[in-house]
């Protein structure tokens, strides 16, 4: 950083960008950046970049962009002022100087920060502290309602329970046999099995009667007392006494 620009090695890789190089050149000119000559700085930069042999083109590109911009600034500063052009070359020069000052300020600030008494390097905390501990203690909560509701639940859960099974009306097979054979004796022609069922509105009882009567019809057919006829599956089932 503090080396003479004339003796700089021809290598751009040591610089952190064009602004870094510009700042080094400016500092070699004057300590106070406010007093530097922008024109001289531009000359220094252009001369440096011209003789620098960049190893990497992509690194050199930034320096060349800055060189082009500085060349423009130099010509604008030297040529008669064109009042149409905004901002003015002096304004641009001032901005460049301000940028160098900002970077310079931050570079100094970084150095001053690092030179402070740093914890763990210059000053030390206690190496083996006892440590502080936080012990979590539960504060149990419950309401009187929770308590009595819980007891109610236990009681309800464990109270003796009686299971009562209601009598369901059914027609036994014997009853069905007797009824179907009786009705069959009074019947001359084919009749559906439904016509043998008792006249009832009780659905479950009717189902029971149908099942028992069907089994009874099969039994009568086996004994040769009845004939059964059905056109197709699920078609009406007809019964007739054997002749």
């Amino acid at each position, binding site marked *: 950083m503090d080396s003479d620009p004339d003796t700089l090695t021809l290598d751009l890789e040591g610089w952190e960008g064009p602004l870094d190089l510009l700042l080094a050149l400016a500092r070699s000119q004057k300590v106070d950046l406010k007093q530097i000559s922008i024109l001289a700085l531009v000359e220094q930069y252009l001369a440096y970049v011209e003789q620098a042999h960049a190893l990497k083109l992509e690194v050199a590109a930034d320096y060349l962009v800055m060189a082009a911009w500085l060349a423009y600034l130099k010509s604008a500063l030297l040529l008669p002022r064109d009042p149409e052009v905004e901002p003015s070359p002096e304004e641009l020069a001032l901005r460049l100087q301000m940028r160098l000052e900002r970077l310079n300020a931050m570079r100094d600030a970084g150095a001053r920060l690092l030179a402070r008494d740093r914890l763990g390097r210059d000053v*030390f*905390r*206690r*190496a*083996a502290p*006892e*440590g*502080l*501990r*936080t*012990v*979590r*203690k*539960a*504060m*149990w*909560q*419950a*309401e*009187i309602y*929770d*308590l*009595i*509701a*819980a*007891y*109610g*639940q*236990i*009681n*309800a*859960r*464990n*109270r003796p329970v009686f299971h009562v099974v209601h009598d369901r009306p059914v027609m036994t097979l014997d009853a069905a046999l007797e009824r179907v054979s009786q009705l069959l004796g009074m019947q001359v022609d084919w009749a559906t099995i439904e016509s043998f069922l008792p006249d009832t509105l009780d659905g479950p009882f009717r189902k029971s009667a149908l099942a028992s009567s069907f089994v009874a019809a099969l039994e009568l057919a086996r004994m040769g007392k009845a004939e059964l006829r059905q056109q197709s599956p699920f078609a009406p089932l007809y019964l007739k006494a054997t002749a």
Partner: protein
Amino acid sequence: MIEPDNLSRAVEAVLFAADEPLSIEAIRAHVGEETDVRAALDEIAGFYAGRGIELVCRGGRWHFQTAGDMAHLLRREREEARKLSRAAIETLAIIAYHEPVTRAEIEAIRGVQISRGTLDVLMEAGWARPAGRRETPGRPLTYVTTPDFLTHFGLASRRDLPGIDDLRAAGLLDPVDLAMADMAIAEEVETEAEED
């Protein structure tokens, strides 16, 4: 290396920053061989006497430590509100209605086993306590509720607990919830089995 009037400061800093107790020789390695470390240690010990930090010597090695009577401050208790589990509140209810009652009796009434932790929670909360042994085979421990229990639940005495008829009148014996309660119990038995 160190001026005499700075020596006690230097020894103090070295001991403070050290990660283990230091012998006088080890201290000297930091502050200089030609120093009267012993005198500096005495001066420091005097300076800290009666403060929150003290300088102590154990087996010829010196270190700072927090004053013994301040140890309780290093451990901070933080209270966290927690709701009682279903098992705990039922167990508490059974103790309250039937005390003194043994663990086996609680399980018989609940119809479900209780984990060891359930009674611990009630005792930690200060609502139940052991109360002597029942003079039956095995001499099982019995449990009763505490005065804190009455205070917490706003009861003058256990007679203030609503009776079964009151519970029924309040709809708290309504079997409608039974199916759900049974499901909850089944889950709880599983989790308690895991805890044990």
